[in-house]
Each structure stands twice: as structure tokens, then as C-alpha cells.
């Protein structure tokens, strides 16, 4: 069953066609990767799904309902959580507070009970904390729990951002370059985590990634894009050996073009 479906989605900025008639679907429990050279429209597709952009044409469906009528802040309530390419954490807060923001969509108490901090608010806070602690446990963030983001190294921030997305208890995770800027070791950890997210938590993953080692070890299917157009879709091996994909990355020889 497909969880997320994009149908003939097109987005233009003035004369530039950023995403050109892209259609694909992501099945439930799948790890799906978007690859392609810079400017191929990968992150733009993420921003379309997050509803930061409106497509000019086409439809995006999640669990067979169109999400185009939803506002950006309603997307996480559907069960889609995301990370950002260049880390968008709340820098003046601790790791714990950042992760708790991920619980925002599960907050149920009204303004007045929050002001008097009624017992139901306290109960809810304990439950939020319990979920967040599970995430901390899963991602091994214990040493950083009470540290401020502004003082953390890049690799840890990346993981905190993944944790914040997990704290929303999503059905689907959008990871925008989860391994960019990570060391070889940290990338290896990321591979294990993505596998565990898929197998243990049963969360579907859609990711944009340049590291082909990571892509081929975790993803079930890969979609290659260039200049906003689909080039090839299939298993990591099929896509990597597809002639058009090779051409997009390495360029074509003059002889071939003629």
C-alpha cells in the first residue's frame, strides 16, 4: 500500500521549472531515497510535501487524502515529520527542550490550565517526557540532555534534529541529507538508526542523500532526479548503473551528444 503519492507535481519559480511533472509513490514501511546533482529539486520536493511551497500543478496524497488543502503546521499532525538540510534547531534551548517541542502536536491542555499548571498539564508533561526519554535512549543522547544547542558539535545537532522529528511519533520521516557533514563513523551510526527506525518502529522513511554508501545500504528504492525531472527509479543498484543517471552526474561525452 502506498503511504505517500506524488502525482504529476510541477513547481515553477518564474521561468525556472524547479520540479517538472514528478510522480512517485512511497510504500508503507519503505525506505525511499531521492538522489541527484545539486539543484535537481530534491529539497524542493521536501518543501512541497511540508507545504512550504504550493505546487503549480498536480496532487500530493498522504494515506490517500490530498494534503494540498492543509497548512504547513497541520502536516505533522498527519504523521509526517521532517529534518532540515542545514539544521533548524532552537539554539537558545537545551536538547531536552528541543525534543519536547516535537511533542507540540500532542499537547491537549488549554491556555488557562497551562497558566495555573493544573494536574492534567503536569501529567501530560510527564508523558511527553517519557516519550522523549525513549528517543534519547534510542539515539544515545543522554550525555547532551541538558546541554544548550548553541554549544553542541555539528554531528550531535544533526542527531538531535532526527530525535526531534522522532518525538512527534510520525508515520513517515522526511530526512533532508541525514549524513551531510557527518564523519565516517557517525554515518555508520546513522545507517543503523535508519534501519532500526524502519524495522523496530515501522516508520516509513523518505530521504534526500548524496552519500551513495548510505543510500545503497539502507534504501529499498531510489529515485534519481536532474533539473527537476525524473531520470530513473528502482533499486539502488539499478539506478546507479542507469546510463542517464551516470550522464547527469558525470556529463555526456561530445561523441554521444552528437
Amino acid at each position, binding site marked *: 500500500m502506498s503511504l505517500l503519492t506524488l502525482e504529476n507535481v510541477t513547481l515553477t519559480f518564474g521561468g525556472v521549472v524547479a520540479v517538472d511533472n514528478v510522480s512517485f509513490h512511497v510504500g508503507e514501511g519503505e525506505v525511499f531515497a531521492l538522489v541527484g546533482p545539486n539543484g535537481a529539486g530534491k529539497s524542493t520536493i521536501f*518543501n512541497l510535501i*511540508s507545504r*512550504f*511551497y504550493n505546487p503549480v500543478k498536480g496532487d500530493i496524497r498522504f494515506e490517500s487524502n490530498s494534503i494540498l488543502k492543509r*497548512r*504547513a*503546521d*497541520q*502536516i*505533522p*499532525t498527519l504523521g509526517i*515529520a*521532517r529534518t*532540515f*538540510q*542545514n*539544521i*533548524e*534547531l*532552537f*539554539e*537558545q*534551548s537545551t536538547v*531536552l*527542550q528541543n525534543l*519536547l*517541542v*516535537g*511533542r*507540540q*502536536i500532542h*499537547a491537549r*491542555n488549554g*491556555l488557562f490550565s*497551562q*497558566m*495555573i*499548571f493544573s494536574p492534567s*498539564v*503536569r501529567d*501530560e*508533561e*510527564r508523558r*511527553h*517526557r*517519557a516519550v522523549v*526519554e525513549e528517543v534519547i535512549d534510542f539515539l544515545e543522547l543522554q550525555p547532551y540532555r541538558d546541554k544548550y544547542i*548553541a*554549544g553542541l558539535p*555539528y554531528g550531535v*545537532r544533526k542527531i538531535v534534529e532526527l530525535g*526531534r522529528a522522532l518525538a*512527534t511519533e510520525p508515520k513517515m520521516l522526511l530526512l533532508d541529507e541525514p549524513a551531510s557533514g557527518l564523519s565516517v563513523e557517525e554515518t555508520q551510526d546513522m545507517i543503523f538508526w535508519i534501519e532500526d527506525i524502519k524495522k523496530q518502529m515501522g516508520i516509513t522513511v523518505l530521504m534526500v542523500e548524496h552519500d551513495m554508501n548510505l543510500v545503497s545500504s539502507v534504501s529499498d528504492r531510489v529515485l534519481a532526479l536532474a533539473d527537476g525531472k525524473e531520470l530513473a527509479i528502482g533499486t539502488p543498484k539499478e539506478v546507479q548503473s542507469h546510463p542517464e543517471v551516470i550522464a547527469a552526474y558525470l556529463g555526456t561525452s561530445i561523441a554521444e551528444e552528437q
Partner: protein
Amino acid sequence: MRYMFKRSYDADINLFKHKAQMFWYLALLVLVVALPWLIDDFFIGEATNVLIWAIAGMGLMVLVGHTGQASLGHAAFMALGCYANVIMLQRGVPFVIAFPLAGLITGVVGAIITLPILRLQGIYLAIATLAISVLTEDFIIIAEPWTGGVSGLMAPAFDIFGISINRYVTPDLFYFLALGVALLVLGAYRNLLRAPLGRAFVALRDSEISAQAMGVNITKTKAISFGISCAIVGLAGALLGLYAGAFNHETFNIVLSIQLLLMIVIGGLGSIHGAFFGAIVIGFLPQFIAISRDVISESFGLGSVFIPGIESGIFAAILIGFILFEPSGIYGRWVKIRTYFELFPFYRKGMFKRQKSFLKTERMK
């Protein structure tokens, strides 16, 4: 150095981190409650003034310090709270109803008025709120049948459950009234900060785009923040009107808006302590200048010297000093001093230096 051993999640949820912290805050509470027996009536009046400033400061801090939205129009909402309260009192509404209602009216009106301008960012939002401030001054003059126009209004005598409170006759009672309101506001503010809404405010301040991706409705949350901020400032305005006794449109001019903003910058943006520290500076500064002027002119035998504008000058100098040397305000400096002694002798100079932040996601709006 103190090591904390946390046994339950409540350790992070509770208002006080540990027993010693609770002790010091309770000691401070005892001190402020006992203040009327320790100092004379004149200084109790000044302390009341500081408390009113602190309430207004907390109101603005919700918006500027925690939600990250600039406002230069809060004098307008102080005016609204003040006039609403006094107009209701004049028409025979008892104080215990009129006062909270004045805050509520200010909050609701504030949230509604600011809805259309909430899409503006940074300096543009500041300009729009400044316009509200300017318009309100004119509106007060035009709405003469209610507000008394240029000649203003006199605060009527009022009582709480039969106990009459007057700034001059019973300064201690007025002090306790201001203290009670300040404590209630403080409690609600602290509670909000440890609840989901407070975290949503801080999320909005630090990264709007990712707050949105985490399910925070930006327009709604900003409007709520404006509403709470205006309601608190409205309460402060109502107290100010009763404290001043007589007021007109000039009481709530743009200078007041700017003073409010400068107060929380000097105190330290983003902390409740900052509102109180700033209020102490701004509340006592005029008295401090007056007293030191007397002392100086007496000791040098100069007679009474009056330098026009000295107050604004000194105030501006303090402000520039803070922006240049301690942008995190008095509270920021206090945290550094405290850390120095807690970690002694391991404090390093670069400890509070902000690490250069990494590139933010390409802004989408």
C-alpha cells in the same frame, strides 16, 4: 559546585530546581512582604512604582524576550488597560471585577488589533506597533466623552471588599495590591514557560520555519502571545492609572513605549529576572539622580542645580553601555558572576561566548 541527582521527571517540571533555590526565593518573598515595616512611606511608594514597571516589563518580555516579536506600541495597551479600569470604576463597577476585566479587554483587543500586522517581521512589525501607539494618543483625545480628552481623568477612590485603598492614605495597602498582582502574573508566566505554549513561543523566536514543521500554528501562537502580553501590560496600566491618580493622553506617549522596551533590554532579554532588574533600574533612576544631585550640589556648595534632560542622558548612556558591553543585560551579567563562583577556580572567559552558528536553511519566505 552542586551536583543534582534527579529521581523523577518532576525534578525538571517543578518550579524550583532544588531546595536551596526554593529557600532563597522564599527568603526574597519574605523580604518584599516585610518591606512596609522596614522602610518609610516615600520609599514604599517608589517600590510600588518599581513593581508596576516590573509587571509591564513581564508583559513585554512575553512578547519580545520569549516570542521574539518587537513592539514599540505597548504604551497604547497600558493606556487601554488604564482607561478601561478607571471608566468602569467611575460607573460603579467594583474594583475586583473592573481590574481583571480591564486586563482581559486589553488582551482581547490587543490580539485582535495585531492579527493583521502579525505577518510583518522585525523592524516592520516595530513600525506598525509604533503606529498603534501614535494613533492611540489621538484616539484618546477624540474620544473625549469617555476619556476626558486632553484634560484627562482622575482615578476614583476604590476598595477591595470594603477595605479602601489609596496611594497616599494607605501606601502599604497599595504596595500589597501591586505585589499581589505582580506575583500572580509571575506565577502564570513561569507556568506558561514550562508548558507546551511557552515552548512554542521560544520555538517561534528561534526558528519560525522549524516551529511550523513541528506543528506550531504561527499566526495563532503569535496572536496568543500578543494577547497575553497586552493583558499583562493592561493590568500594569490600570495600576499605573490608580497610582498616578490623574492621567491624560500624554501619560501614555511613545516615550513610555520606548522606555518599556529599553527596560527589558537593560534587564536582560529572554528572562523573567530581566523584567525585574530593568524595573529596578528604571524605577529608581529618577530618584537616584535627584538624590545624588542634592548630595553633589550640597557638598560643593553649588546651590540647587537643574540640568534639563539629565535623566534621559544618563538613561541613554546606561543603555549604550549595556548594548556595547553586556548585550545579555543585568541578568546575563548576574548569571556570569554566579557561574564564576560556582565553578571557582575553573571559570573561563570564553564560557558564555556564543559559538558561531551554522548556516540557517535557505529562508523560504
